[in-house]
């Protein structure tokens, strides 16, 4: 197997998980590059070495695809794609960012859960005016209903706040990711041309 095939194979395997049309498009770009290199009288080995590491290229292309998807659709899977893509970039300062990220995300998740449970609890209590039966509750049914309503909307507000915060956080991550694209170095055995 020659260098051209092995470069394209490694690139393709690195792009695994992207939509098929996107992969074909990317591969076609690099095939065209090899063709143009041949036409210019360069060997496949020379072209492959000048292109740089296909695994690194694939990581960057994948990360960018993930960030794009988030910008197109604000869904949970797209948000996960951003996080996976950024971890794939494996920037050095990720070791600093990752613990912070993990604690922020877990706190956020806890608050989100709390908000959901509160909203659900308030909603369940509302129709039954359940609290009037609790010992120590002196109010009438109307007060109980209003209290349940208050709890429910409080929970819903907390949930909404958490979602807004999550969107902001992922947007921040997108900027972090973009700042960590690198110039992919030419291979070590690539000849320098002027």
């Amino acid at each position, binding site marked *: 197997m020659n260098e051209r095939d092995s470069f394209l194979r490694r690139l393709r395997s690195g792009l695994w998980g992207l939509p098929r049309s996107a992969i074909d498009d990317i591969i076609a770009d690099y095939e065209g590059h090899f063709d143009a290199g041949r036409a210019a009288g360069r060997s496949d080995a020379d072209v492959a070495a000048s292109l740089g590491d296909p695994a690194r290229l694939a990581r960057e292309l994948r990360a960018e695809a993930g960030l794009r998807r988030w910008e197109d659709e604000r869904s949970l899977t797209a948000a996960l794609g951003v996080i996976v893509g950024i971890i794939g970039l494996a920037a050095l300062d990720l070791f600093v960012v990752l613990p912070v990220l993990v604690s922020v995300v877990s706190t956020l998740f806890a608050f989100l859960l709390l908000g959901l449970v509160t909203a659900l609890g308030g909603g369940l209590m509302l129709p039954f005016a359940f609290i009037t039966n609790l010992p120590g509750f002196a109010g009438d049914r109307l007060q109980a209903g209003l209290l349940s309503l208050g709890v429910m909307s409080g929970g819903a507000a907390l949930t909404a706040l958490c979602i807004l915060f999550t969107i902001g956080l992922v947007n921040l991550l997108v900027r972090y990711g973009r700042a960590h694209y690198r*110039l992919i170095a030419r291979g070590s055995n690539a000849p320098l041309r002027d």
Partner: protein
Amino acid sequence: MDSNLVQFKKGVLELCVLALLARSDSYGYDIASRLSAAIDMGEGTIYPLMRRMQKDGLVSTYLVESSSGPPRKYYRLTEGGRKNLNAQKAAWTDFTRAVAAILELDLEKTS
């Protein structure tokens, strides 16, 4: 490579591509080989960048039949790309002029 230098080069790469395309439409291999000599980067870097610029609406593509092999993908500057180039060029010129002035000041002091 010095990491500072890498950041400089990464920053101006897009500007260089815009400037090349402002002169004439071009294809990936041509852009990559012209820039890789000047900026000392892997030629493969150009394709992720071109995809990003295309999605940002700075460049558009069209296919040209070639005598040998499959048709070639050419990149052309869009109106938005031209505006972006002018803005970046002005910022770059201002910035380098300011830096050069400071560096020369330093030179006069030491000599």
